[in-house]
């Protein structure tokens, strides 16, 4: 079990108002599967992704990554898990505008220096080649198209060989062609044994998904009828 949510609830509190988003959610995510998380706007998809990515703490319940309760870990240790075990892909790409493509990809390896300088370089080039941007390494994000930027972001998410890929609307800003490219890519990663979790409104994602999860009434419901 690479990622597990156990009796997890999340409320946002602001002064006197309390927004109940997720309530007593339990689910086990496995390696090698492509999860499509679907749900109405405001249902709590982004909230769930952020909790899974250790960016938000649940109000109640536990998150376990490789059977380790991350709630018991220090801020530093959680940061390390984000760096080593989780890759993020966002709708807005979220690249650093002051860094060239290869620097963006290298950043997670740069943050925790497990690689030597040469290894870092080689790995960065490998990743950029994998997403088909070998000849655009020295370009700044603003010099790349949306699809290219998202591929840089995916390459960055794969730095440090994470087991979990979390994507919140990864194709939201892309045209159908690039959308297809990105989803194929994520599917490929799932096949290679990673746990890929994609939040999306787009029904086309269904074609790539191994499991479909619906967030409804503060909880996750797996569409059992659907299994590829």
């Amino acid at each position, binding site marked *: 079990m690479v990622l597990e949510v156990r009796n997890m609830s999340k409320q946002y509190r602001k002064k006197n108002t309390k927004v109940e988003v997720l309530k007593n959610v339990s689910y086990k995510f496995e390696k090698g599967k492509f999860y499509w998380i679907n749900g109405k706007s405001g249902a709590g998809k982004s909230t769930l992704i952020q909790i899974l990515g250790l960016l938000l703490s649940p109000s109640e319940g536990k998150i376990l990554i490789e059977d380790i309760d991350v709630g018991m870990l220090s801020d530093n240790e959680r940061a390390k898990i984000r*760096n080593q075990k989780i890759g993020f892909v966002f709708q807005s790409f979220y690249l650093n505008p002051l860094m060239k493509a290869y620097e963006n990809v290298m950043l997670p390896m740069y943050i925790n220096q497990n690689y030597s300088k040469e290894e870092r370089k080689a790995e960065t080039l490998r990743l950029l080649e994998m997403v088909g941007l070998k000849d655009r390494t020295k370009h700044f994000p603003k010099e790349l198209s949306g699809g290219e930027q998202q591929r840089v972001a995916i390459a960055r998410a794969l730095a440090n060989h994470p087991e979990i890929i979390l994507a919140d609307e990864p194709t939201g800003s892309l045209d159908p062609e690039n959308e297809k490219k990105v989803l194929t890519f994520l599917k490929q990663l799932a096949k290679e044994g990673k746990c890929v979790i994609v939040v999306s409104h787009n029904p086309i994602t269904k074609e790539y998904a191994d499991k479909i999860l619906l967030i409804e009434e503060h909880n996750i419901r797996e569409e059992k009828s659907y299994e590829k």
Partner: protein
Amino acid sequence: MKNKLFLATFYQLRRKSNLFNIFFIGIFTFLTVLFGSYNSSAIHYMKYDIYDSVKQKTLIVSKSQEELEMEEITLDDVREDLNKLEYVTNVARFASFRNYLYSPSLENSKQSGYVELYASNNSVLPEIVEGTNFIEENKYTMICPQNFFAIDNLEDLWYMKKKDGISTNNLLGQIIPFEYKSNSGMRTYTIELQVVGLYKNNKYHVDENVCYVDESVLEEVLYNQYSDDNDDENGVSNLVYQTDFAIQVDELKNRELVEKELIDKGYSTSPMSTVATAYFDDITKKMNSMTFGILSIIFLFVLIVLQKKYKEEKSQYQLMVYLGYSKKNIRFIYNISNIFNIILSCLCALLISFIPIFIFYKILSIYPFLFHKWRLIVNYMPILMIFLVSLVANFITSIFHTIYLFEDENE
């Protein structure tokens, strides 16, 4: 650690707005260096150069009339006594020690105005570079500075350029008439003094209008000023019985020794300071308030800059959290990056200061302007002040920012 430091420092230079801020703060810091330097030069001039001059080597010595009568000694005895003191180079009756006399409009307007005449003798004259000392045959002589300039008001001298004075050839041998009125203003006297010698101007002391004459000449002037008044016989007698002497010490450092000895001998002493301190106080006040103004501007500017920088970079900091930095790391990077910018601003100010000041020095060596009387002192202290002010601004903003940086998650 290395990576965090890089992201907090040199990486920051990629952001153009940061470069602009650094330069902007640098310029303002340079201005404070300018003001500070002007201030320091003026203060240095007043504290060290002027005080080192003839006036500060002068002491007023007196013994009360009663004491003189009790000890049964005359003023001549006192003069003899004072003359015997070590380090003392000139003794003159204070009443005649110096006097401002007006030289009326002459052909050369530079000779018109007030001249400060000091009672002197050959043993205490400054270095004579042309002409002679006082001569036996004629007591109505005077020794003038090489660069001579009668003034209407003292401030003129601070800004006077060397070439404004009267050239040497012109002055030597000339007979300059002076006018003065009796105390009641009823009678006008004239006295003519011939310039027999020229002394070398003190580089740092305002002495363009200071001339030396024999003591007896000044005494004569004083008698005329008082004796004219028929109703007040006391005027002259007061002068006669005035017990004050002015003495000059050979070097400033010996003044204390002389003072001590005089007190031991039962004299009372007081220094004679006629420095236009008000003028300097005025400069200092203006410069200080300008520096304070700039400091406040910088403080506000740094606050605004840090606020702007925080807004620009907030999402990038959050991204770095996604990619594996802890909140502590981010706080570290954020604070170091701010401090880095501040340090760079100060370095920038140093650089901006160095070049113009270097050029300024070069120009001064050719055209000294008002600095022919001043020693130019460059004061880099404001940079330190700005550094501290910026640090305070950084500290204030950073407290708020590091709280709000992760505000969303804390809910």
